[in-house]
């Protein structure tokens, strides 16, 4: 079945938007898992584009390639997440900006400026409510143990 070219354009537009979102996300987020997520989104956009083209040309080659892409994405996920976990164990953070040591010797590192403290005027003293009711009788053991979540 030959699809309408306008429908193809819609599919391609969606795929492009997916790729764009993924691209922007990869470039602007600092969380390693979210960066990986964005990369995966880019892959999905490309897959959608491939399927749409396949449908347009009535060629199953597009879908075949997408199967390859999915398998590849899975393998890539394994490796990438292994890397992310190792880096998290090493540095204690999921921030990619913690890993800058491969820069040139005389380049300054990227240090985020601390956010200025938000101006909030706290009242000198919070209003104090008189306690009401009775305290329930609990023990530490009971509090710390939860039989079911």
């Amino acid at each position, binding site marked *: 079945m030959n699809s309408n070219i306008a429908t193809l354009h819609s599919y391609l537009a969606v795929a492009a938007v997916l790729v764009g979102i993924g*691209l922007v996300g*990869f*470039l*602007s987020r*600092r969380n390693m898992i979210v*960066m990986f997520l964005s990369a995966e989104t880019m892959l999905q956009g490309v897959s959608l584009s491939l399927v749409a083209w396949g449908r347009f040309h009535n060629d199953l080659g597009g879908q075949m390639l997408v199967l390859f892409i999915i398998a590849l994405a899975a393998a890539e996920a394994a490796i990438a997440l292994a890397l992310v976990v190792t880096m998290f164990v090493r540095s204690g953070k999921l921030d*990619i*900006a913690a*890993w*800058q*040591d*491969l*820069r*040139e010797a*005389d*380049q300054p*590192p*990227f240090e985020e400026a601390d956010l200025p403290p938000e101006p909030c005027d706290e009242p000198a003293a919070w209003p104090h409510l008189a306690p009401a009711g009775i305290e329930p009788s609990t023990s530490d053991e009971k509090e710390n143990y939860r039989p079911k979540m």
Partner: protein
Amino acid sequence: MLLSIPFLLILVPALPLAAAVATAALGPRVLRQASHWPTVAAVALSSAASLLLVVAVRQEPEHERIVPLWSWAAVSGSNFHVDVVLRADPLTAVMLATVTFISLLVCVYSIGYMHGDRGYWRFFSYVALFVFSMTMLVSVSNFLLLYVFWEAVGLCSYLLIGFWYEKPAAAAAGLKAFLVNRIGDFGFALGVFLLWTTYGTLDFDAIFQRPALVGGGTTTAIALLLLAGACGKSAQFPLHVWLPDAMEGPTPVSALIHAATMVTAGVYLVARCTPLFLASPDARLVVAIIGGITALMAAIIAMTQTDLKRILAYSTISQLGYMFLGLGTGTLLGVAAAMFHLVTHAFFKALLFLGAGSVMHATGGVIDIEHLGALRRRMPTTHWTFLVGCLALAGIFPFAGFWSKDAILAAVAEKTHAGDVAWLYSALYWAGMLTVFLTAVYTFRAFFLTFYGRERLPREASQHVHESPWVMAGPLAILALGALVVGAYFQWSGDFLGRDGFLAQTPSLVALGEKEQGQLSAGETASDVTLLASGVAVAGIAVAALLYLSRPAWLQAVTALMTALGLYRLSKNKFYFDEIYRALVVGPLERLAAVFAWLDQHAVDALVDAVGAVPRAIGATLRPLQGGLVQFYALLMIVGVLAFLVAILL
């Protein structure tokens, strides 16, 4: 003849060369304090070979023997070819015999003088190299090789003057000698170039036997340029300033190079090029004028110097001036007398210098005659041999200098009778006479102040003012004997001055003999010249004895008179030549060099640094691309892809 001329000709320079190489190779480790053996043996054998060569050349003096060795340079397509060719004719034989004999005596003397010196092997290596260069200089048969060995003796002179190179004065003196020589050599080189363009060949025989030598301006130019080279090497005015400073070198060096051999290379050059000077009367006149001026000027300067070696240095300059005066007359008598004076001067000047060295050896290096006195009691051999040398230098009968100096003056006197420049020659003749007087005065001034008077020993002598060992006194005695008899012997045998004498048979000089038919025969010296010169010399000695031995008050009066006339200061400051040269030549050159140094530092180096700075700048621009942020890298990748797409689509 047991040994053939070619073999002897090659042996004479080859042995010292081998000795120089052997001493340089084996001296530092193997021979050490025995480093004199190769040089002394080689020079002794060379000396024997030179004497055999003289005997061999005597058999047939009018045919020079040419010994080609190998072809050095040949440019195909033009007729430029230079071969290493040696020649044996009377002039060469005389020079070789003199050079090697004096060198032998100086080498033996140096064994004692340089004993214990740290550079003992280096000294003998350099001396052997010098003997090789000098013997080759007088043996070669074309101008290019002559120039090569001219430079080689200049190099050896530099090495030997600056022998004690750690002494700044010695290093500076060596440099000065070499640079002033270079100025003369520049003229020499130009002369060689002019010879090539005029004659198309540089071979002696080809140039001197041309039936029609190119006359006029070209020949004068060539002759004057060659004279410039000779002035540099023989320390004539105005290139004489290096010789007194060269006294910083060891005394045997002064005796060998700056009295007897190297400085005579200029005289040899002019004598060899006699046909060229014959063809150019103007150049001859210039030679004579320069000789006369130098002789008088150096004698005036020597009157007030207090360093004995410097007195002897100025004396050398003055006597070389005499030789040039003789050469400038252009007569057979003049040229032959100049060569005769060269030989006798070698003997007595070497004797005087070695005597001064003997004094230095005894006084611990002090040679200032104001600090010495009455040394004759402690050093009798030195005293008597020095006396013989002084008498020979002053020209007293029958010592060697008498015969040769009077021959030169007779030759100059001949030229005062006729010709349009007779007045000039007359002036030169009286200048020569005055120089005889001054020579006697300053020579005996030095002699009396050193060996007579109140005994004064310098502090450096430290109680060991004693006579020199036999290895030093022996050569002194031999040279004294030579200074006594050499002149009389050669006068009797007519080897030099005879019209058919040995020297006159040299092919270049034969033309001279043919030119003068009805003039005074070269064998007879004019007796009135002889009487006048002897009288003047004896008067000079008497004046010196009077002023320096018996009447100090008169000495003060004379000094006051000379100071009032301004002559004393002029003489003491060497006519301010060094200061003039420094202001006119050295100063501007130093400023020019400073300008170029500034340019080199700020312009050329800046250019080179700029070339080096470009890659660094590019690197500095590209370095921030690697910042360590993963997202920045991803951004760059995307930018690259976009650029690629744009390039595809456009």
